[in-house]
């Protein structure tokens, strides 16, 4: 006959399915939240890296100005840029390319050609070049009045603030779920102690320490929580992978890349591990505190 795993008859109570179910739900939601945070962080890092080494110069057409004037201003601006240390490249975006960019909103009819569209210069900076954008903007405006230099800082700052807010909310959700989980485990453990009080009393009477009884509960809860945690993680991984697939199919040019790196996927594995650790610690403290109150 197989040896009983526990001195307490846990297989006869509802914790057998209740704890895994609760843990699966907790881990699923926590892993989704963490996955969301990681995706946002990755996106903001990619955007920051891309935009911190780039400038966009916009030269608005002057009223009633000839196209030749606009071309002249672009060439003068390019000349200034190419003489500036730290500028790796400066390329004027031609009118056709600008028209193609606007095509989703304005269509491709002849009307677009007649619109006074601004001229754009895409500037790539050397990494850590320390280009003084304010001085550069002044020099550009001298040769091309009405030009604006956009280093995307305001946009990135606002985006970062938005991402921070979403991260804080997600972290709050994770903490809230952990607190709810702790509350549930406390109740389950107390119920277990009540349900098995006769057996616990026998264990005490044959010389068991409170730690021995607590260890029985811990082992049982660890097995249950790992089982539930793995189910929750599998569900969350499926949901995140599905979200990535859907986002790529939907509009790859508009939506950021939501793929997680291998390290980030591995960090999600820590969620059920952390949830199990919290569950075991909660069980231990609950058992010991409850038993200490007994005679």
């Amino acid at each position, binding site marked *: *006959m197989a*040896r*009983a795993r526990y*001195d307490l008859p846990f297989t*006869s109570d509802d914790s057998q399915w209740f704890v895994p179910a609760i843990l699966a739900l907790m881990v699923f939601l926590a892993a989704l939240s963490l996955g969301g945070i990681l995706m946002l962080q990755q996106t903001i890092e990619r955007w920051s890296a891309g935009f911190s080494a780039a400038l966009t110069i916009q030269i608005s057409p002057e009223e009633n100005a000839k196209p030749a004037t606009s071309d002249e201003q672009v060439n003068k601006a390019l000349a200034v840029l190419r003489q500036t240390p730290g500028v790796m490249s400066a390329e004027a975006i031609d009118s056709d390319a600008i028209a193609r960019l606007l095509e989703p909103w304005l269509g491709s009819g002849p009307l677009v050609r007649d619109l006074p569209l601004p001229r754009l210069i895409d500037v790539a900076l050397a990494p850590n070049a320390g280009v003084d954008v304010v001085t550069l903007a002044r020099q550009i405006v001298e040769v091309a009045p009405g030009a604006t230099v956009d280093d995307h800082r305001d946009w990135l700052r606002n985006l970062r603030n938005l991402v921070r807010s979403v991260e804080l909310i997600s972290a709050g959700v994770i903490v809230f779920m952990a607190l709810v989980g702790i509350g549930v485990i406390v109740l389950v453990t107390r119920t277990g102690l009540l349900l098995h009080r006769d057996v616990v009393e*026998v264990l005490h*009477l044959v*010389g*068991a*320490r409170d730690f021995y009884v607590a260890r029985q509960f811990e082992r049982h809860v660890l097995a249950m929580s790992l089982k539930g945690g793995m189910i929750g993680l599998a569900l969350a991984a499926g949901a995140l992978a599905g979200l990535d697939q859907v986002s790529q199919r939907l509009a790859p040019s508009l939506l950021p890349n939501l793929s997680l790196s291998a390290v980030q996927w591995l960090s999600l594995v820590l969620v059920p591990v952390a949830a199990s650790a919290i569950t075991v610690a909660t069980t231990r403290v609950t058992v010991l505190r409850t038993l200490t109150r007994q005679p």
Partner: protein
Amino acid sequence: MRPLETQNQPIVSFNNVGVRYGGGPEVLADINFSLDPGSFHFITGDSGAGKSTLLKLMYLAHRPTRGVVSLFGRDLAILPRDQRPQLRRQIGVVFQDFRLLDHLSALENVALPLRVAGIPYAQAREEVTELLKWVWLADRIEARPSTLSGGEQQRVAIARAVINRPSLLLADEPTGNVDDGMAVRLLYLFEELNKLGTTIVIATHNQALVSRFSHPQLVLKNGTIARLPSGTPRDAA
């Protein structure tokens, strides 16, 4: 840690002990006696006389409402909680209702005191098997308590009580579920343990059985000691 058993001092000592449940009357009152190490005593009395309550005080399942209970020279009222398990491991108890764990086999039930003391199961198995043979249960080692007869359960309970060679063995009506022949055999078994140095206290209302042995009796009546055996000190202080 102080040694649990000290020479020349009582193994059990009750001093002016009283017990009441809730706000009810005292079920034990003015209990004064002490038991020497290696002694063999019967506690007798009618049902409701307080025999089980007296034993519960001795195996630390209850606290007295008043008075002092000492075991192995330790005052239980001031014994720290973390030292109670060590004391309990020196006490074997045969409960009236056996209190076997239904989800464990006879072998695992008997091995329980060893397991809680940290002895690995593989190491305990041989010893437990030997003991189960000693109580005539060699062929029922893997049986669950629910499949055992009352007498077999009783013997499993006795085996569990003595597996860690306790200094003090307390038995509450240990022959209540067996026929007279088996009852006498069990009593002889307790005598063997007593010869090995274990202090034995048996609570029973079976006067016929008690009279077949020459061990002293402590008679309880309505929660008080009606008669102490000669030579048993009444004042434990």
